[in-house]
C-alpha cells in the first residue's frame, strides 16, 4: 500500500535511481540487458554512484542468480527486500503474536485478515500506517493512506464499510505542526468521504515528540459472505494477469525504499516526488468495478498495487500460489510518455488492482473496465516455471527465481538494551491547591478535549450502519438486524515510553474496555507498530517490549492479532525528535443489537452511578502529570489481574439492557470521564470511599480496566457486577457536576465543562 511505515535503512533514499558501477553494460546468460540508465539520467534524478543494494544483499543475490542482477532486477530486490515489504528486522518479533483463533479464517499474510462474523458474513480487517508521506505531503500522504488500506479490503472480495484513524501530532503551537494537522485531516476526509466509507472512530494524540513526524494510521473494515472471499493466492498457470484502474505514471517511484529511512531536514522538498497522489474518484470506480467483477466470478485471485507497484503485486500474487509470472511492461496503460521498464514495474501510482483472470473471462472483465471509465489491460500471465520474468520492448529485462525475490530476504534480530538513561525521571507534582483549576486544565488538554472539529469533517453516516457515532468510546455499526460490530483504536504512548511492556498491555485492555461498554466482545486486533530508529538499541528495546506487552495482553483476553504493519525510523532531524513508542491498535468486536446500547453520556436524572474497577495511586504516563510538566514521573499503573473478569461483567451488564450509560475511563481518569458524561445533565458524586489516596490521584489516576455506569436498576446491575470491584458513587441530575472527597469538593457548571471540553474545536475555528 504505498505505505511508508517500515523501515529500513540500509537503503539510501532514491537509490532506486543509482546505478551500480559494476552494472554498466552487463550481458548475462541470455538476458539482454537494456540500458535504462540513459533515460533515467536524462531526467536529472540523482545518480550517486553508490551501490544501490546493500553489499550483503547483493552478495546473496549474485550467488543465487550466478550473475550480476540487471538494473530492473536490482530495482525489484531493492523494493521487495526493503524493510517495508519484508519486515526484515521485525519479523522475528512479530512471530510472537498469537494470530489464530476459532473465528480467524485468514490471518496475517494476505492483503487483509478475514474474521468469521455471523449469519454467513465475514469481516475483512486491515491496518496501515502512512507516516512518512504524511509528513512530506500531508494532504496526499494521508489520503493515499486511506486509499491503500481500502484496496487491501476490496482485494479480499469485501465491500469496505468502515474506517478508523488513530493520529499522532506535534503540539499545535507551531505553524508547521498546525499545517500538518489541518492537511492530514483534510486528506483523510477528502478521500474517505468521496469513496463513501464512513470514519466511525479515531484517536488524536498530541505530544512534542511527534513534531515533524506525525503518525497517520488507518484501520479499514470490509464485509462479505464467506463464499465471496478472494485471496492473493494465484490459482492456475496460463491464467492472465489483468491490471485495472488508473494509468501508471512515475509518481511514487521508490516509495517502499523511501519509507525505510528517517526524515532528514531536506526530506520534505527532496522526497515530494516519492509521495503518491490520490484520486478518490477513481478509487470509488475501482471499488465498484472490482466488486462487480468478483461477483460475476471473473476474478480468480487479486492483489492491490501498493509498495513496489506492479512488480510487488504480481510477483507476490504468483509466488503465493507457487507459480511464476511473465509481465509484459509495454502492455501497461501509461499516463506519461517514454516510461522505461523500471518505472512501469515499480511506480506506486495509486488506484490500481491486479486480477488473475481465466483466458475466457478476459473480454468480460475488460468490458467492466470500460463500463467504469477505467484503464485496464492484460499485462502478463501466470507460468508453471517458478520464475519472475519481465519483458520490455521484446526483450527480457528481468528473470529471477520468484521465491528468491519474494521470500529470500534474510531477517535479523537487532541488539536490544535496557535504556537505563532513556527516560529522565521527573518529580511528581504536588497536589494542587486549586483542584478545580487543575480539573479544567486536564479536561481542556487537546488529548482529552472533544475531537469534534476532526470528526465533523468525516462523513460518518454513509452506508446506513452507524449506530454509535464518533465521540463515543467505540463506533458501533449495524451488520444485520440483530448483530453489529464495535470498533475502537489507539494506544497510550506516554505510558509506553515509561514502560513499554505495560504500555502494550494497556493498549489492549483500553480498547477492549471501549468495546465492552457497548456490550461488545472482541473478535480480533490489528496493529501499527510505530517506533523510532531500531538501529538504536534502546529503541529496539522499546519496540521489542511493547510488542511482547501487546502479545501477552491479547493472549490474556484470547483475542487474536490478525494483521498490521511496522513503521520504524520515525525521527525528525528538523525538530530533533524521535517519536514516543506508539503501538497503536485497532480492535473489532461483535455487538448484540437486540437490546438498546448504553449511551456514552448521562441521560436521566436519578440514575445511579457506579464506578467499576480499582483506582490506584500510580500516575506514570498520565495526562495529569503531563499537564503539570511531570511527563516522566511515576510508575505506569499495571493492568490488573482481574481485567478479564471486569470485561466479562461489563459486557454482560451492557447487554442486559439495564444500563442507560456506560463509559470507559482512560486519559484524565475519573475527572475526565465524569465531565465527558455530563454533556446534557449534571451529576452528584461522592468519591470518599473509592480509595485511600490523595485527591489528585483519585481524580486523575488512569489505572486501567475501570468504567463509569449509570442505571435506573442498580440492584440488577450490582448483581451482574458482584464478582468484580465496584462502588456506587452518586446520582445523575442537576445542572452541574458536584464532586466530593474526604478533604475536598469541586463544583463545575455544565458550561464550564463544555467550554473546557471544546478547547480544540474553539482553537481551530477561532
Amino acid at each position, binding site marked *: 500500500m504505498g505505505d511508508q511505515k517500515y523501515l529500513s535503512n540500509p537503503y539510501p533514499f532514491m537509490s532506486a535511481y543509482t546505478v551500480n558501477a559494476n552494472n554498466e553494460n552487463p550481458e548475462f546468460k541470455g538476458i539482454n540487458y537494456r540500458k535504462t540508465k540513459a533515460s533515467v539520467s536524462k531526467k536529472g534524478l540523482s545518480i550517486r554512484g553508490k551501490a544501490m543494494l546493500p553489499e550483503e544483499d547483493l552478495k546473496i543475490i549474485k550467488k543465487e542468480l550466478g550473475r550480476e542482477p540487471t538494473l530492473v532486477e536490482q530495482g525489484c530486490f531493492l523494493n521487495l527486500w526493503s524493510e517495508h515489504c519484508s519486515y526484515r528486522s521485525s519479523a522475528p518479533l512479530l512471530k510472537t503474536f498469537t494470530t489464530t483463533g476459532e473465528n480467524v479464517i485468514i490471518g496475517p499474510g494476505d492483503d487483509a485478515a478475514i474474521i468469521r462474523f455471523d449469519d454467513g458474513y465475514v469481516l475483512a480487517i486491515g491496518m496501515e500506517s502512512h507516516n512518512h508521506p504524511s509528513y512530506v505531503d500531508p494532504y496526499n500522504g494521508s489520503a493515499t493512506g486511506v486509499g491503500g488500506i481500502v484496496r487491501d479490503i476490496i482485494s479480499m472480495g469485501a465491500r469496505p464499510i468502515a474506517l478508523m484513524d488513530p493520529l499522532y501530532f506535534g503540539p499545535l503551537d507551531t505553524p508547521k505542526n498546525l499545517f500538518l494537522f489541518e492537511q492530514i485531516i*483534510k486528506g483523510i*476526509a*477528502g478521500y474517505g*468521504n*468521496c*469513496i*463513501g466509507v464512513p470514519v466511525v472512530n479515531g484517536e488524536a494524540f498530541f505530544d512534542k515528540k511527534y513534531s515533524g513526524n506525525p503518525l497517520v494510521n488507518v484501520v479499514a473494515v470490509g464485509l462479505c459472505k464467506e463464499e465471496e472471499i478472494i485471496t492473493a493466492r494465484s490459482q492456475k498457470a496460463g491464467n492472465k494477469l489483468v491490471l485495472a484502474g488508473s494509468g501508471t505514471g512515475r509518481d511514487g517511484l521508490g516509495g517502499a525504499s523511501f519509507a525505510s529511512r528517517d526524515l532528514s531536514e531536506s526530506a520534505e522538498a527532496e522526497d515530494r516526488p516519492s509521495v503518491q497522489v490520490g*484520486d*478518490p*474518484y*477513481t478509487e*470509488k*470506480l475501482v471499488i465498484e468495478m472490482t466488486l462487480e467483477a468478483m461477483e460475476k466470478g471473473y476474478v480468480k485471485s487479486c492483489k492491490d498495487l501498493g509498495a513496489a507497484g506492479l512488480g510487488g503485486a504480481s510477483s507476490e500474487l504468483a509466488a503465493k500460489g507457487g507459480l511464476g509470472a511473465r509481465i509484459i511492461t509495454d502492455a501497461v496503460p501509461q499516463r506519461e510518455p517514454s516510461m522505461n521498464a523500471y518505472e512501469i514495474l515499480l511506480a506506486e501510482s495509486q488506484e490500481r488492482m491486479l486480477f488473475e483472470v481465466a483466458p475466457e473471462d478476459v473480454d468480460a472483465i475488460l468490458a467492466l473496465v470500460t*463500463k*467504469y*471509465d477505467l484503464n485496464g489491460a492484460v499485462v502478463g500471465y501466470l507460468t508453471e516455471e517458478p520464475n519472475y520474468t519481465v519483458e520490455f520492448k521484446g526483450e527480457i529485462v528481468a528473470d529471477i527465481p520468484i521465491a528468491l525475490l519474494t521470500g529470500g530476504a534474510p531477517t535479523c534480530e537487532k541488539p536490544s538494551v535496557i535504556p537505563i538513561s532513556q527516560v529522565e525521571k521527573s518529580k511528581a507534582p504536588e497536589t494542587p491547591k486549586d483542584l478545580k483549576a487543575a480539573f479544567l486544565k486536564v479536561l481542556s488538554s487537546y488529548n482529552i478535549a472533544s475531537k469534534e472539529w476532526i*470528526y*465533523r*469533517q*468525516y*462523513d*460518518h*453516516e*454513509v*452506508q*446506513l450502519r*452507524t*449506530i454509535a457515532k464518533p465521540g463515543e468510546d467505540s463506533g458501533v455499526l*449495524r451488520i444485520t438486524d440483530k448483530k453489529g460490530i464495535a470498533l475502537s483504536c489507539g494506544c497510550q504512548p506516554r505510558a509506553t515510553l515509561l514502560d513499554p511492556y505495560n504500555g502494550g498491555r494497556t493498549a489492549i485492555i483500553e480498547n477492549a474496555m471501549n468495546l465492552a461498554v457497548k456490550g461488545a466482545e472482541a473478535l480480533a486486533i490489528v496493529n501499527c507498530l510505530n517506533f523510532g530508529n531500531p538501529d538504536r538499541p534502546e529503541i529496539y528495546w522499546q519496540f521489542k517490549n511493547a510488542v511482547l506487552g501487546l502479545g501477552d495482553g491479547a493472549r490474556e483476553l484470547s483475542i487474536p492479532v490478525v494483521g498490521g504493519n511496522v513503521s520504524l525510523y520515525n525521527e525528525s532531524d528538523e525538530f530533533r525528535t524521535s517519536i514516543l513508542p506508539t503501538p497503536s491498535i485497532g480492535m473489532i468486536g461483535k455487538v448484540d*443489537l437486540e437490546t438498546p446500547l448504553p449511551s456514552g453520556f448521562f441521560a436521566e436524572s436519578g440514575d445511579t452511578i457506579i464506578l467499576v474497577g480499582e483506582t490506584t495511586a500510580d500516575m506514570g504516563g498520565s495526562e495529569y502529570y503531563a499537564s503539570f510538566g511531570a511527563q516522566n514521573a511515576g510508575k505506569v499503573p499495571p493492568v490488573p489481574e482481574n481485567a478479564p473478569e471486569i470485561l466479562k461483567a461489563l459486557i454482560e451488564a451492557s447487554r442486559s439492557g439495564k444500563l442507560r450509560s456506560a463509559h470507559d475511563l482512560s486519559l484524565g481518569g475519573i475527572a475526565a470521564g465524569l465531565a465527558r458524561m455530563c454533556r446534557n445533565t449534571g451529576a452528584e458524586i461522592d468519591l470518599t470511599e473509592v480509595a485511600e489516596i490523595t485527591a489528585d490521584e483519585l481524580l486523575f489516576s488512569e489505572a486501567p480496566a475501570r468504567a463509569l455506569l449509570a442505571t435506573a436498576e442498580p440492584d440488577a446491575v450490582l448483581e451482574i457486577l458482584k464478582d468484580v470491584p465496584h462502588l456506587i458513587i452518586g446520582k445523575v441530575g442537576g445542572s452541574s457536576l458536584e464532586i466530593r472527597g474526604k478533604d475536598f469538593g469541586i463544583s463545575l457548571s455544565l458550561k464550564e465543562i463544555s467550554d473546557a471540553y471544546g478547547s480544540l474545536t474553539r482553537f481551530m*475555528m477561532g
Partner: protein
Amino acid sequence: MKIAILQFGGTNCDLDVLHILKDVVGIDAETVWYKQENLTGFDGVVVPGGFSYGDYLRAGAIAARTPIMNSVKKLAAEGKPVLGICNGFQILTEARVLEGALTTNEYPKFRCHWTNLRVETVDTPFTSKFRKGEIIRMPIAHMEGQFYAEEKTLAELDENEQVVFRYVDENGKVTDAANPNGSLENIAGIVNPSRNIFGLMPHPERASESILGSDHGLRVFESMADYITENF
C-alpha cells in the same frame, strides 16, 4: 411502480437509497448507471448523494451535463417526481432544473452532523405525509451546501412556497446558530415551480430507520410513493 436511482461515477449513496426504498418503504427501485441514458418504464427518479466525478470542476457540474439528465428532464416534464439529495441537489441546480446554487460552506470544511429542519410546505409530492411547521431531524454531510440565489429568485421561492425545509433550532426558530453552512434564509431544500422536482442537502435516507437516530426522513420517500400511486 418503479423508481430509478441514478449512479454516476463517484455516487456513493445509491445503495443506501435503494435499501430504504426496497427494504423499508417496500417499493420497487433499481440503480441505473449513467451510461444507460434511457429511463423509460420508471415512475420517478432519485439522484442520490456522493461525489459525482469527484466534485471536480464544481460539485455536480459534470453529472449535470451527462445525456441521462435529458431523460430526467423528460420524465419530470411528464409530472413524475424527481428527488435530488445532497450531491443530487447540486446536480439538479447545475442542470438548471432547480433555482439557485450551492456553494462552499461558510466555514469552508466538510460538515457531517444532525440538523433540525422545519417543514415549510406539505404541498409537494415529497412532503404530503408531514405537518406544516413540524420540526424534524436529519443529518447533513457536505462541503458545498450553502444555498445561494439572487434576491429576486429568493422572493419568488418564498412567494410560491417553493422552500420545503429550513434549518432551525430545536424550538423551530430560524437562527444563525442553527444554520450549518450559511445558506440564505436557512434554506435546506426547495422544489421547482411545478413542485415535482425536489432538491435538499440533508439526507432523508439516513433518517429513515430509528436505530440510526431518526425515521423522519422516511416520510419523504413514502410521500413520493403515494404520489406516484395516486397519479401514475
